[in-house]
Structure formats: C-alpha cells, structure tokens
C-alpha cells in the first residue's frame, strides 16, 4: 500500500464532495469529475501494487492486475459521457435562466410550508 496514493484519493474525494455541495451547477459538475478521478485511482489501488503493464508475452509474475484497469477504463469513458451531458444541461440552463445557481425545489418548499397552515387542514387532505 502506497501512502501517497491513499492521500491523493482522500484529497480528491474530499475536494469533490466539497464542490458538489455548492450551489453553482458548474462547480457541481467539476466536483463530480474530481470524485471520478478519485474513484478511478481507488479502483486501481484496491487492485494491488504497481507492476509491469499487462502485455502477454512478458514476465507474467510482474504484471499489474488487469481487471481493475479494465473496470477503470470503462469508468473513465462513462464519466466523460456524463460530464459532457451535464455540461450541455448547464449550458441550456444558462441560456434559459441566465443563472447557474441550483435553486431549492419549489414543490418541496410548498410541502414544508403546508405545516404552517392552520390546524385542521392536515386531516382532510387525501
């Protein structure tokens, strides 16, 4: 286990989570990308120590585990697709609202406000 890699993973996750808890849509998207980097690293590190590239015909005993690499490869590409899509959403949202702030859900707010309505109404609602 390599200490610096563990530190890198932790920092990536921490910073990513900090970003997705923001209100700016673009910062949230960047946060997701940061977390994705951390996740890929985590996959690889969980697979074991570093080794030679897994190319058949070379010394098999020195290979790094190829399975986590294959999984991480898929993850990288999927993350790319998701990021591109989210960016398109951010762009569209900006075009429509001139803001990339994530507002509170109005419907949820309304339910919360319902509690403050005069007593007696709560029971009649179906």
């Amino acid at each position, binding site marked *: *286990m*390599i200490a*610096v*890699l*563990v*530190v*890198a*993973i*932790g920092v990536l996750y*921490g*910073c*990513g*989570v*900090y*970003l*997705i*808890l923001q*209100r700016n849509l*673009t910062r949230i998207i*960047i946060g997701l990308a*940061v977390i994705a*980097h951390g996740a*890929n*690293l*985590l996959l*690889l590190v*969980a*697979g074991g120590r*570093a*080794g030679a*590239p*897994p190319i*058949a*015909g070379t010394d098999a005993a020195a*290979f790094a*585990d190829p399975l986590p*690499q294959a999984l*991480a*490869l898929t993850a*990288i*590409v*999927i993350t*790319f*697709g998701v990021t*591109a899509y989210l*960016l*398109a959403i*951010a*762009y569209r949202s*900006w075009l429509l609202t001139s803001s*990339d*702030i994530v507002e*509170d*859900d109005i*419907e*949820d707010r309304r*339910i*919360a406000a319902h509690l403050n309505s005069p007593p007696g109404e*709560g*029971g009649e609602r179906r």
Partner: protein
Amino acid sequence: MILVFVVHAVVALVCLIGGERLGRRVLLVGAIAPASIAFAFWQLATSDADALTATVSWLPALGLELDFRFDGFSVLMAGLIGVVGVLVFLYSWSYFAERTGLARFAAILVVFAGSMFGIVTADNLLLLVVFWELTSITSYLLIGFQDDSAIARASALQALLVTTIGGLAMLAGVVLLGSAAGTYSLSGVLAAPPSGTASGVGLALVLVGAVTKSAQVPFHFWLPGAMAAPTPVSTYLHSATMVKAGIYVVARFAPVFAVLVAWWRPTIVLMGLATMLLGGWRALAQSDLKLLLAHGTVSQLGFMMVLVGWGTPEMTYAGMAMLVAHGLFKGALFMIAGAVEHHAHTRDLRRLSGVARELPWALWMSVVAVAAMAGVPPFLGYATKEFALGGLVADTPWQVTATVVVGSMLTVAYGLRFLWGTFATKPGVAPVPEQHGHRSTVGLLIPVAVLTVGSVIGGVVVGLPDALVAAAARSVDALSSGFQLALWHGFGPPVVLSVVALLGGWLLWKWPLPVLRRFTSRTPEATRVYGDSLIGLNRAADRVVSTMQSGSLPVYLSVIVTVAVVAPGVLMVRHWRSLPEIAFAESPLQMVAVLVVVAAAVAVTLVRRRLAAVLCLGAIGYGVAVLFIIQGAPDLALTQLLVETLALAFFVMVLSRLPLRFEVFPDAGGQAIRVVVASVVGLATMAFALWAASERTAPSLAAEFIARAEPEGGGRNVVNVILTDFRALDTLGEITVLVVAALGALALIRAPMPTEDPDPSEVGT
C-alpha cells in the same frame, strides 16, 4: 372442492364481462357462485371421511402449497356462506333498481363469497391470510359501492384500515407461529402446538387480526360505520359471514391454546364481554334501523367470542350453535330493515309509523327473528341460548355468566326497540304514505321468509341444526361429542336466567329513553379516536416530509454522502484487521504527480474564476494519468489523456459563455458544514482504501485472464482483450451510454430558444 373456487372465479368474470348486457339479471347469475358450495357438501357426503382435503402445488420449493381441508366446522361456515349468499343475491335482485355498476357489484360479491369460502377451508395459515385480506379488500369495495357518497368512501376506508391493519398483524403472527411450529399447516400447528415467547407473540398477533375482523372492542367502530354499504352487503358481510371470520379463527385455536396459554381466557373473555355490553348499550341509543342492528351485531359477536374463546367442549358447542342461530336471525333482520326502507324511504325509527298495517308479513317475520335473538321458545335462538347459559354456568366463574345475562337483557331491549321502532304506530308521527307505482317489497321478503322459517324449523326440529353443530364442534374439539341441543333442557339455572334476561330486557326497554340516550352519549366514541389518529398520522407524515424534503440539493447530497460514509464505516470499524505494510511512495515521480494532483484539487475548491477551476481540473486529470503509468496501466493513461483533453475543450467551450466568475449564493452557516462533511468523506475514503487492500481474501482473477488472453482473445494486451472479448457486452453498453449522452447533449445545445410565445412565468424563474 377446488371446483368451487373455479366456479367463483368464472362467475365473477362472467359478471364482469357480460354484466352490463345482463342488466339486473347479473345478480341471478352471481347466485350460481355461492350455490356451487353445495358441490363441496355433496362431495363430503358421498365420501366416508370426516374431512375432505385437497392440495394444489404452488411454490413447493418454499413449502407453499394450497392446502384445503373441508371438515365439520367448514361445513357449518360454508353452509352460512352458501345459503345466505344465495339469498342475498336474490334479495339484491329485488333491492336494486336497474342501474349501472351492478355488474361490478355482483362480481365483487362473488369474489367475496369465494374468499370467504377460502378462509373456512384453508389449511395453510399463509393461505388463510391471503383469503382473509381478500375479504377485507372486497369488503372495502362493497362498502364504498355508492362511490359518489363521501360518507360511503370514508366508511369503506375506515373498515379497510382497521381490518387490514389487523390482517397485517395476523400475517406477522402467522409467520412467527409457523416458524415456531415448523409448519404452516393449520391442522399441523394445532396438532403440535408450539410454545415459547415467539409463538406466544405470534398467537397474540393472530388474535389482533381476529378481533379487528370480528369488531371486538376497541376495534368495534368500523362495523357500524360500514352500514354505509347497500343493505345486501350489510346482511351478508356484516352479519352473516365476514365478521365471523375472527370468531372462526378463535374457535379453531381456542381448544388448544386456551389451556396452554395463561393469558388467553382472561383476554378474550374480558374483551368479548366488554364488546357485548358496549354493543348492546349503543344499540339502544340508535334511531337508524341499520345502525341499531349493526351495534346489535357487535354485541352478539362479543357474546360468540366469549363462547368460542373459552375453549371447553361445551362452550365450543354452544358457540357453534350461536353461529348458526345468529346467521339466521340477524340476516333476516337486516333484510327486513332494507325492505322497510325500500317501502317507506326512511330508516329512521322516529319517522316510521304504521308500517305494521302496510307490511304485516314483515311484522310477523320480525317478531320471529327478534324472538329468536332474544331467546324466546320455541325458536332456534332459544335452544342455543339455553345451551350457552348452561355452558356458562357449568364452566365459567359466576361473574361471566352474570355479565352475559346483563348483555342478554340489552339484547332483548334493543330487539324490542327494533320491533317497536319499525312497526308501531306512533302518536304524533305521520304514518308512512302508501306507496303506489312502486315495485313490490314482496321480492325482498321472500329471502327473509326462508331465513325465518329456518329459525322456526331449527327450533322445533332441533335435531337438524344439532347434527350440523355436533359435526362442527367435533372437528374443532374431539371431546365435544355427547352434547345435544334441546328445546327443553329441564328446569334449572338456564331457564331462570333466560326469564331474568327477558324480563330485565323488557324493563330496560320501558325505561324512559331520553334518560338512556343522555347516558349513552356520554360514553367516549372510538370513532373519534380513529379520526384523531388519522389526522395525527397525516400531521406526522407532513412533518417527516417537510423535514426530510427541504428542497435543497446540498442538503440532500449531504445526507446521501453521510450515509455512504457511515454505513460502510461502521462495518469497517467492526471488522478492522491489522493494516498492511505501508510504503511511502514507489518512485519520486509518483510523489511529484501526487503533489500536483493534491495541489490542483485544493486549488479547484478555492478559485473563483471558472476558467481557473477548469484548468485545475485538467491538472488533476493529467496528474492522474501519470499515476496510471506508474501503476502499470498505459492504456488507462492513454485514455485518460485523450478524454481529459476533450473534456477540457468542452468545459472551455461551455464556460466561455458563462460569466467569468462563479456567482456567490448567499447562505451563511452552510460553509462550515460543507467543509466538515467533505473532510469526513475524504478521511473515510482513505481508511477505506487502506482497508480494501488488507481485506482481499480470494486470489485475483488476473492469472486466469492473462492465461486466456492470447489463445482465446487473440490479443496480447490483456486489458484490451478483457474489454473487447471477455466483457464485450459491457463495452457495448458503455458505447450505448456514450451515444445516448452525445445525442442528449446535442439536443440540449441545439434546441431553439423558447422565444415564440413568451411566457414570463416559465422563462424568468
């Protein structure tokens, strides 16, 4: 026996599909279903056995079989279901005018009859619960038949809530009981009753189901509420069949568990007596005929609960007899109430007057039914009540007997109130107008006549019902043979008690009613408790929703992230092993790359300019690519470099349209929480990374993949072979995701601005 179910299913379908074309005749078609129960009788009668059994394989791997058993007790119950069922269908035929929805009504009633037959024949406890809940649901649909009435809907919901909550408790109880006994077979559990805490709790839960269904205190209120149903439904479900399902279950269990379980008798007897008294008391105060009868039914159910719940052979015998007698007289009374309402257009006994002149036959049949209910010779009700009193005197403490006698006085009193209220000519009340051009009520009274004649014959030729009751009692409790119903048991305590009850009841009825009503109105109403608890439930739900759903995305994400940390974190702490050996770094280059990554990650959280944030993100990506190379994953590094470059281009393209800096959202206090949550997640992930490496128990699949890559995949790069051969389908899925994402992104960017038809409320928010 299985055929009976098939017939019910087919008839229900026929009613549903062909119903609107058949019109009112659909109710006659429906009558075929309960009539088909006769087939089971015939089958049993032609076989030598005491009981028929049938099994249909359902889920044999899970031990779920459709086990049916048709024994003496089932015969008694199925007789009620079949006979009253046919009569109710005939009655409905006269009761309903031509109207839409009759097909639905008939179909549901048929399904109900089938489910009820299922309850009394199921020999698998789980199967019993299934039928049990089916009767609750059909009852809900039938009570709410007049779905344009808010009262009907609310009453239906109330009945459904009460009986299904009981049903769910029963399901839990059945599971506990079944797993304690090692079998879900009803006869198996009764043959080898389990003991211990689990089975005790299970038994209590089953009882909860039984008492809710049979409307015992404190769950009695749904039954009078259910009177919003059409009268045929009240007759069938709420006096003759469904409400007796609870009695049925208790009667099955009592002979075994009343002796084994210490709390059984006190619980059931106290509850039953309370129900008997409260029901009778309330019945006295009612001025609606159906409500009066409904409260009376509650009272009688309490009485039957005491009888069958006590668990001694004689009391069981008495309970069985009461089941029959009650089905006959109460069914008749409900039908009469319906006929009177049909004739006079009111059920209010303060407005009815002079009905005796108009409907003399109804009067005489009511007199018989009420006399049977009150226990006047020579009707079946008298024979059973004498027997029951004899059993009470012999087997129970005197307090129980005394309470039952008081309850019987109330029965006599509300019986008289029913008679007087329905038929008497009251001074100061205008007699009901004579009905002209009105469909005759004769059709309504024919089924009543059948039930009344049954009460009379059953009393005079008491051997007929006795054979039925004897077989029923024997199949529940083998010791209960040797008893006999008789019209005259000789002079003894039962006769004295009967006379006391009759006289006392007459006096109670004579009691000035206003005084009585003032008393009854002071007793607290269970309905109000129900209503309040419903309102409370809604309030609580509102509170939970408004707490859980604040509408703020950061809050939701914080909750999700915290759970994602805490749940595996607990497992990690509990299963912590010693850490693997830790090296600081594998090469200086790795240290440099990590430094870059960490620095860039910290920077990306701090910068306020969008472009700077994107560049930091790119730095992270390239740093990670370097780490991939060091880790021995050149393919990963290559992909990462390409993807990162493309992603950077996208980010720059999109963000160049947005303002230079992030907008600042004013929310104080959130910052600290964000930092804390983020730090906790970071630390937990580090712990997880360490833990994951130390937890590996199975050898990697790597050797397998490496060995097969060249011969089977034809490639030397193992990672590529895995992606394109071994996990090819997965890769195909990945490509699909990319295509969908690309199309989606394209559509979002290309979509025209909604400039035409500008709606400020949509665009501006």
